[in-house]
């Protein structure tokens, strides 16, 4: 297998506000977008010819991935103009597909081990994995290594083996797409017409972000594996413990304490007397002012955090400016997404470009929409839409 087609056109609306300006595959985890982990996994397995089917906010992918050179791969982009489904997305790559290729759904977080065995299988094959709650996925019925049927998000799963949305196909697959919109429909058609569909099981990582707070759990899985690199300046009296990665031109000022696993990007200005605790990832060009403590959180690029803030189990979007003494402590919260309540332990989810005045308190589980403005000393809670004004 020499070629991979990555489906990266989706929006991921349940992840809003984090997907308003970027596609789901570009969600950052430990300083890199999910998509990059997939591309790196492919490159490590010797697959360097990569086709990306893009659509929603595709420029974000172009800007970050470029021609793939930085990652040692060749990327060809194919546009899916209307987002009608995964099979429709795959059909867009018909012109550039080789005789045999992998197809991967780009919104899954994997590493090289997930697909090591799979890159050598013969088409048509499906990578499957055992999971704890199969009801969310496509559940596969397998006999003697051959898939006999796939049930999408069944009420009662007959097995706990699900399809990972990673496939090995030959060009024949295009003949089965016809009017099917989803790949699982195509697979069922293959099975119905007697085309053998082999199952190959993986025990490597395979994770997905479905809701905004999943960014935190993905981050905490990946961050311990991040390479520890020291690119910046660490002033006297700073305590660095555990695995800490510091980007170029970043300054960590006197008496700060950083306890890994922590990833800090380029050009940040941290401290003096700041406290960064596990498992936190911080983007590029971020200011963290004195006496602030950040724990188990994901901070985006171009963020400024004022003095004396306490931020736990939180996600802060790109370009937020947060005044002094902002508090986002973690707690049990009932968070509503798409009319369904989820019970999670969470701090605050802040969208991009928000301005938050000093002394604001965020209740556990608050989701603040992009480009919102919160005046000083306010309490925010619940779900606030994009461009909210709290005063």
């Amino acid at each position, binding site marked *: 297998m020499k070629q991979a087609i990555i489906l990266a056109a989706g929006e991921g609306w349940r992840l809003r506000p984090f997907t308003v300006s970027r596609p789901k595959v570009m969600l950052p985890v430990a300083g890199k977008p999910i998509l990059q982990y997939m591309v790196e996994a492919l490159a490590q397995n010797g697959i360097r010819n990569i086709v990306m089917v893009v659509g929603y906010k595709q420029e974000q992918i172009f800007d970050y991935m470029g021609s793939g050179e930085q990652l040692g791969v060749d990327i060809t982009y194919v546009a899916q103009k209307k987002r009608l489904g995964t099979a429709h997305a795959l059909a867009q790559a018909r012109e550039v597909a080789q005789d045999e290729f992998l197809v991967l759904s780009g919104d899954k977080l994997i590493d090289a081990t997930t697909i090591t065995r799979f890159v050598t299988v013969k088409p048509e094959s499906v990578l499957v994995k055992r999971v704890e709650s199969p009801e969310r996925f496509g559940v596969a019925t397998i006999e003697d290594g051959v898939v006999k049927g796939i049930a999408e998000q069944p009420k009662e799963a007959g097995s706990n083996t699900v399809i990972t949305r990673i496939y090995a196909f030959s060009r024949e697959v295009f003949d089965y797409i016809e009017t099917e919109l989803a790949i699982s429909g195509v697979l069922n058609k293959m099975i119905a017409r007697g085309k053998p569909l082999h199952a190959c099981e993986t025990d490597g990582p395979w994770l997905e972000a479905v809701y905004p707070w999943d960014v935190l759990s993905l981050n905490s899985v990946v961050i311990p594996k991040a390479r520890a690199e020291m690119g910046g300046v660490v002033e006297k009296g700073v305590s660095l413990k555990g695995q800490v990665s510091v980007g170029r031109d970043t300054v960590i000022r006197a008496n700060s304490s950083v306890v890994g696993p922590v990833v800090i990007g380029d050009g940040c200005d941290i401290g003096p007397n700041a406290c960064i605790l596990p498992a936190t990832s911080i983007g590029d060009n971020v200011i963290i002012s004195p006496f602030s403590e950040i724990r188990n959180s994901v901070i985006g690029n*171009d963020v400024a955090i004022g003095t004396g803030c306490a931020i736990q189990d939180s996600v802060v979007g790109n370009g937020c400016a947060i005044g002094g003494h902002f508090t986002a402590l973690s707690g049990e919260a009932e968070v509503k997404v798409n009319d369904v309540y989820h019970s999670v332990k969470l701090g605050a989810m802040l969208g991009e470009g928000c301005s938050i005045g000093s002394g604001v308190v965020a209740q556990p589980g608050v989701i603040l929409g992009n480009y919102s403005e919160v005046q000083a000393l306010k309490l925010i809670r619940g779900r606030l839409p994009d461009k909210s004004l709290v005063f």
Partner: protein
Amino acid sequence: MCGIVGYIGYRQAQPILFNSLLRLEYRGYDSCGIAVSADGVTVYKDAGKVGELEKKAPRLKGAAGIGHTRWATHGEPNQVNAHPHCDCSGRVAVVHNGIIGNYRLLKKQLIAEGHRFISETDSEVIPHLIEKYYQGDLEEAVAAALKDVEGCYAIIALADGDPNLVVAKKGNPLIIGIGDRENFVASDVTAVLDDTNRVVYLEDGDLGVVSAAGIKIMRDGREVAWEEKKILWSVEDAHRAGYEHFMLKEIHEQPRVIRDTLIGWLSSGESSGESLVDLTKMQGDARPLTILACGTSYHAALVGRYIIEDVLGIPVRVELASEVNYYERLLVGAAAIALTQSGETADTLRAMKRLKAAGCLLLAITNVVDSSVTRIADNIVYTRAGPEIGVAATKSFIVQLIVLYSLAILSYKVDAGRLTDLVMELRRLPEKLQRLLSGKDRIKEYAGYLSGYENVFFIGRGINFPVALEGALKLKEISYIHAEGYAAGELKHGSFALLGENTPVVAILARDNTYGAMLSNIKEVKARKAPVIALAEEGDDTVSEFADMVISVPEVDALFSPVVNVVALQLLAYYTALERGCSIDTPRNLAKSVTVE
């Protein structure tokens, strides 16, 4: 990033090499060179773009050769450091893309063994290593040399009397193009597509032997079968990374290049080693600081004037370099800033020489390392926009602004509170631009509207007056629509006669002391029935009562409004030109840098 190429076959190598290098200019263009082998290896290399070298290069005879185009980020792009590099005897020539991690050690060993090094590059160790191991077989020598090397590379080696090119790849891209009785090697497919669409992609660790008759690929010491790929897409598609034009790609790169430019300085002094010049010390006396520039850079300079005067209270005079050259009495101050993207603008260079002769202290701001301006100036600040391919300047302009902001703000030492606010605003600019870019659909729609007209006015006041000039220039450059940039208050001194239903006016607003006056200007324009497209901050409800169409840009401190406004106007010009079917990346009659007066 650098680009490398190779040719071996029956034709003269030189024109083929230069043509391929031209295709790789997106990888860098500050110095380049070729080596051709016939009776002995001849090398021709120098600082400068591929096109310039192609013109002045002597005809080197030979049907086998290698070439290189370079983009220096560290070290000077000069003749000595340009590739190809040779061994002591001049019989082996090598082009290299990548970084040799252990070159200091290797160089020391090789010098101890009697090898002579000429350049400061890491790459030069490779030809010397090959010389060391050469015993009549280039392939064996290259294989042995690479065993000593740590780092990443794509290389092509050529040796006098050897019938092959030997290539190797680890970490950097390299492909072989298959021709008929001839073969090609290059950093990427675009370089060979004029001659062949049959290519072989090399894998990391591969060593290839390429002759006119065929190719052989060795992996882990064994010959492996290679797989030929047919390339179906055209050259044009390749390096725009998904975008339809380089210009759009470069517009979208702006948040990142701003971040890259800021990162070096804001946290620093301490970390990056490169520090900005203190403008307050540079000025020296009570006379104004002069900024010299041409074209788009002149507009950046005009914005710079507002920035420096506002932040630092230093008087600034902005001069078109082409005019300064004809002032009979040169009444400039003690210090001047020269603003040139390419660093080669002939008018600016000449003006700088005149100023220097008059005893003026010169600071150059340029995007090209070691370009001509840097040899004249006393101080140099580099913008970090990377190579810009689209002829219409976009990211290089924005980065010029960012450097001017940084220079002014980091020279400011009066009020720590204000300094913090300004730095914070500066740091948030990348995200603001990203937001503008992701909401560009509205701009596309208005561009469709604008494309139907032949005359457009751009008006602005204060710090956004130069933005009006730049917006008009961008539209003229790529869409060929006649556009005029005006200070809004000047419209009534004559140009009103030209306004009517068929002359749309683009009005640029900012929330500063000009806002009220701009609204009155829009009213005046509307009274002449001219359609008005207003550029205004998000959440500005007032302007929509006056203007026909409103382009909303993210809210920023008025001092920084040119950054978001210019990007909105770049997009407006781009989509207007696209709608009119213009050749956006290479507009008619224009060249990237003007090196004649």
